[in-house]
């Protein structure tokens, strides 16, 4: 089953051989990592990824700057063209005129092609950077230990990996373009100032005001659009609940109450949108018409200067064109500065994840074991979650090929034992060894290679049933997969699904019952044929009759390996050669079912409590979506992501 390793310069240290891969890599890995030096500022930390794309970046910047400079000459040349009309008409010699037209046309064409390539290159760099950051964050997540995931919410991680990265991308896309257009402003200003100092200053008089007003507008807009979205989500939540709870609404004749509830939310939405309208009604006409004020001054004051003979008419034409060109960047400058703030904050949040390191690492001189016998030994193991002691000096031994059941109340530390055995967490005190080798001395992947576990809520990926079963051994043959499915009593129901083994399941596929998922989980573990098998409440949701059948096939399979069972049902416990009774982080007793029934009074107590809990525990999982997650889900359904289209027109139009 050991796959040849795929060449990888990567971010994650991937041991060769232990990791089956059944996908072809179509895109190269990120060429660079972020700068791990936490003292540097955010931009310098991202810089290595940017520099890895320096060819595109350099090409883009060079092209943008050159074409901008070429572009700046166009208005001046058109001014010249206007001025050449009169002399050309009087002399009748039109070749100079045509020559000028041709020059301008060529320059514009070069600017078109160069500018398009340049800004496309810059766009590519920011897209590449976004993709690389996504991969770097994703890859890093797999290097973290479970204590990190315990304290971090999945939703938060996803939002960081998504909108925060997007914010950085947005800034790095806009900033170079805006900076080059500011460069064009500098050139245009130099030209204007050199033509006529006071006219140039007069025509630019409105620009600071435009800048100031745009910044102000943006500051006012943010809270409004934020609140608009929140109110839109409110409306959506009311509608969603109303549709799903329509029967209740009708049962209690509460239609009017619901209409009023919606009316109130719709009124709030109306209120905030009217306020947005008012803000744009004040600022937008002002900003747009202030832009024209410069032109008025050019034509009136400039017109006076033409009459005085100080400048030519063509210069006025050029001036108006320059004014259009240079005002745009100023309308966006304030936005870019704000975006920089936001990108900085976003980068901070992403670095928080990337700066996280795992305490669980392979040792330099790790022991690699090809085969193991499967003896397990816990010696004086203590462990605490967030200062709450779970295991207190726990010791026990498991012989090779022995089947041991662990019984104990909720919170007694059953699941912790298997998490420590798989080294998802590090023990605080004591040691755990397999075949006499401490788990810390083994390579983590080597350790996982020998252990397979089935959890009470087995996770299924959104792939076919076949691929889910073959998850641990993608190279398994169809026969082996069917065999494993049969052993787990899953074959029959799989055959009944619409596409059999090819049916896609998981969050985005066919919905299976808890019992069916558990059976797939068992099949998945059996296919790996591990030396140590862990069944953590793995049959809790399976019908009693089917469970009995599974046990029959399990009995045959368990003899060949060491098995640890965590179970509530007596029927499952009876599979074990020996039962460990766990109480308050310690082993209370150990022995067969009959022995414990007569000799250990706590044993029957614990069993009774466990079976009572069973039903309750399952029910509590009906709805654990928090308010925030629910709102988010609904609002994502209804609020279309308009971000990409937002920049459609650009600022240099």
């Amino acid at each position, binding site marked *: 089953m050991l796959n040849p390793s795929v060449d990888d310069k990567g971010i994650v240290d991937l041991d060769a051989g232990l990791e089956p*891969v059944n996908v072809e890599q179509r895109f190269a890995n990120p060429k660079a990592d972020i700068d791990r030096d936490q003292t540097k500022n955010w931009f310098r930390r991202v810089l290595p990824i940017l520099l890895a794309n320096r060819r595109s970046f350099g090409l883009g910047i060079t092209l943008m700057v050159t074409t901008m400079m070429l572009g700046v000459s166009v208005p001046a040349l058109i001014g010249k063209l206007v001025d050449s009309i009169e002399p050309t008409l009087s002399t009748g010699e039109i070749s100079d005129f045509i020559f000028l037209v041709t020059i301008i046309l060529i320059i514009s064409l070069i600017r078109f092609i160069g500018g398009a390539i340049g800004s496309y290159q810059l766009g590519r760099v920011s897209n590449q950077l976004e993709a690389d950051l996504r991969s770097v964050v994703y890859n890093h997540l797999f290097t973290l230990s479970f204590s990190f995931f315990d304290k971090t919410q999945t939703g938060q991680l996803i939002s960081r990996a998504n909108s925060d990265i997007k914010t950085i991308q947005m800034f790095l896309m806009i900033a170079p373009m805006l900076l080059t257009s500011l460069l064009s402003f500098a050139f245009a200003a130099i030209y204007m100032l050199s033509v006529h100092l006071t006219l140039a200053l007069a025509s630019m008089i409105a620009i600071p005001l435009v800048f100031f007003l745009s910044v102000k507008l943006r500051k006012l807009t943010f809270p409004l659009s934020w609140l608009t979205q929140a109110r839109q989500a409110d409306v959506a939540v009311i509608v969603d609940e109303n549709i799903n709870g329509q*029967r209740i609404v009708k049962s209690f004749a509460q239609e009017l109450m619901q209409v009023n509830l919606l009316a109130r939310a719709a009124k709030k939405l109306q209120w905030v949108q009217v306020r947005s309208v008012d803000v744009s009604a004040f600022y937008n006409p002002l900003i747009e018409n202030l832009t024209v004020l410069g032109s008025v001054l050019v034509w009136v004051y400039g017109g006076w200067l033409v009459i005085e003979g100080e400048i030519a008419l063509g210069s006025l034409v050029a001036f108006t064109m320059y004014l259009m060109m240079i005002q745009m960047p100023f309308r966006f400058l304030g936005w870019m500065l704000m975006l920089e703030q936001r990108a900085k904050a976003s980068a901070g949040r992403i670095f928080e994840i990337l700066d996280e390191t795992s305490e669980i690492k392979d040792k330099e001189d790790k022991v690699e074991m090809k085969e193991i016998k499967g003896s397990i030994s816990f010696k004086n193991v203590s462990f605490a979650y967030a200062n709450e002691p779970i295991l207190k000096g726990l010791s026990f031994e498991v012989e090779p090929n022995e089947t041991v059941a662990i019984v104990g109340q909720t919170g007694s530390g059953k699941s912790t034992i298997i998490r420590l055995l798989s080294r998802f967490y590090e023990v605080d005190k004591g040691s755990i060894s397999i075949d006499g080798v401490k788990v810390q001395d083994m390579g983590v992947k080597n350790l996982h290679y020998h252990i397979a576990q089935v959890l009470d809520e087995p996770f299924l990926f959104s792939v076919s049933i076949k691929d889910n079963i073959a998850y641990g051994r993608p190279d398994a043959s169809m026969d082996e997969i069917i065999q494993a499915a049969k052993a787990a009593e899953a074959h029959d129901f799989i055959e009944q699904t619409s596409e059999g083994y090819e049916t896609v399941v998981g969050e985005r596929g066919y919905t299976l019952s808890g019992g069916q998922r558990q059976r797939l989980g068992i099949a998945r573990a059996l296919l790996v044929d591990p030396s140590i098998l862990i069944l953590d409440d793995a049959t809790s949701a399976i019908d009693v009759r089917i469970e009995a059948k599974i046990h029959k096939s399990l009995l045959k399979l368990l003899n060949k390996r060491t098995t640890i069972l965590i179970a509530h049902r007596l029927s499952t416990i009876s599979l074990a050669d020996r039962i460990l009774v766990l109480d308050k982080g310690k082993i209370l007793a150990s022995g067969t079912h009959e022995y414990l029934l007569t000799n250990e009074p706590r044993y029957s107590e614990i069993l009774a409590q466990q079976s009572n809990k069973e039903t309750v525990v399952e029910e509590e999982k009906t709805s654990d979506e928090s308010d925030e997650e629910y709102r988010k889900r609904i609002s994502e359904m209804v609020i279309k992501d308009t971000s990409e289209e937002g920049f459609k027109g650009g600022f240099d139009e």
Partner: protein
Amino acid sequence: MSREARIEANLPFAGIPPEMLDRTNALIEKEPDFSDIQESFSHKSPSSRAFTLWSFLSPYKFRFFLALALVAMTEMLLLVGPYLVQVAIDKAIVPKDFSILTTVAMVWVGSLFLAVIISGIRIRFLGRLGQLLMYDLRVRVFSHLQRLSLDFFTEEKAGRLLTRMTSDIEALSNLLQTGLVNLVAQLLALFFILILLFSFNLQLTLILLVFSAPVMFGFTFWFSKTSKRGYEVVRSRISNVLADLQESLSGMRLVISFNRMKHNVINHRNIVGDYRDANHYTSKIQATYRQGTQFITTATSLLVFTAGFFILKNVNPSLDPEGTFTVGSLVAFNVLVARFFIPINELSGLYNEFQSGNAAVLKLRDLLDTEPSVKESENCFDLKDLKGDIRLKDVSFSYDGNITVLKNISLHIEAGKTVSFVGPTGGGKSTIAKLMCRFYDPSEGSITLDNINLKDISLQSLHSQLGIVPQEPFLFHGTIKDNILFARPEATDEEVVEACKAVGIEEMIRRLPEGLETHCHERGSSLSSGERQLLALARAFLSKPRVLILDEATSNVDQQNEAKIEKALDRLLEGRTAIIIAHRLATTRRADVIVVIDEQQILEMGSHEELIQKKGRYFQMYETWERQEEEKSEDIL
């Protein structure tokens, strides 16, 4: 919304950046409560007219035309500038007349001033009008949803109905506030600009129309179509990226214990790579479009100047400022050309907006034209003081006229009696309950309540005296108290507490950190399904119905709560007609009459003792059930 604002809207609930926190809080504080809003609701549709864009707008037509007049004014004011450029050149600069220059300055600044004011008024006026329309539409569509019968609300429709109320209305709002007005505004602008252009020079305008305009129009049209497609791809690919991320995080433990990190890393890279490629594509389109419009504009200027030059050469070689075509006209013409392209860009960009707006109108029309399958009759009346005597006469029911669920059921339930329906799933017992509530109408036969045909009773009065507790206890977002109060919002706090006591959840609620004010959906305090069912019972208790229907309402209750439920039922059923549909035969035993239903009809009917003695179908069911109960208790030990 401005373009920048739309970009910022990219971060839904990603949090408020710290520098914006104060402003946002200040805004939220200013937000009115609107608790005094009172709409009205009737089960009868207020208007029989089909929903069209026009029928929707017509009540506001006067205001709409006023708005259009304002639009026309602003568009005309925009042209003052280019016209004044021509005047300045031909009347002032060339003849060297300072006084005219001053006039030009004053008129121009005046027009700008006027433009600021009129545009401001226009935006405010139209924006308010649009928001008012949207408010009306939201309430109208939502009210209509309340009117529709239960058979309309199938699960597959839920998501689509939500989009009717949200993105479709949003699309229509965009169409009205920006799309429609923009269309009119841009068409007007185009019209005015063309008049002015023609007045400057006929031939030059024709050259512009023949050579430049189609190129610009086609180019923008190409852009708006391809970019729409491109962004659709981007959207679907980013959702792949996020779904994969989500799945990897949820299945993290599995990935690590099966050593599949490398596989996942490569797979994610592929998905991210596809997403990047989609982004590259849109970047390419955008870069081409941005630079392309610029090029077309410059090329057009050159065309205008060259053609203008030759026209000048022909008609006015001496450049007489009084001539038919002058340098001033040429320069002004060029200034106007840049403006001429704005409507062209906008018009072809409007295509997408129109498509989605029009689609939204059609979808909303479909929804609003849907008639409820259960309608109030014309002369229905409010039934007061229901006693609870129910009679079914030869009732048959089939879904969609095909699948027969009930056949010729006749049954009399006396007021105050408890009747229990038992039988296998799909036998039709829940359907009887739904028919009694008039969630559906029987295909044949009739149902009377206190000897009045259900169809003659107003839905409001029927439902307010009838309580039904369904199998899946639906809880709304909000506190426990809100959910209990749902049945009767005007009930006092004491009554709520009493209802909780009646069903035995008072103590459980008191233990919660926030008691009755605890949110039902919040993580950590989520209720077990047994507790939810008890809550639903409390809700039914509060409504004090004359007829109570429990549709498998106690099926999910766990052993711990079972005793509580039995006690709660004692109080709930007291003095009212009750219909219990149940799996759990323990609940059934208490009924005065047990009705066994299977294969679309009544098989047996009688009290528990009678049916047990009869040794028929009920006897069999009861025996099996008792055996299962024993096994369950054995399984514990």
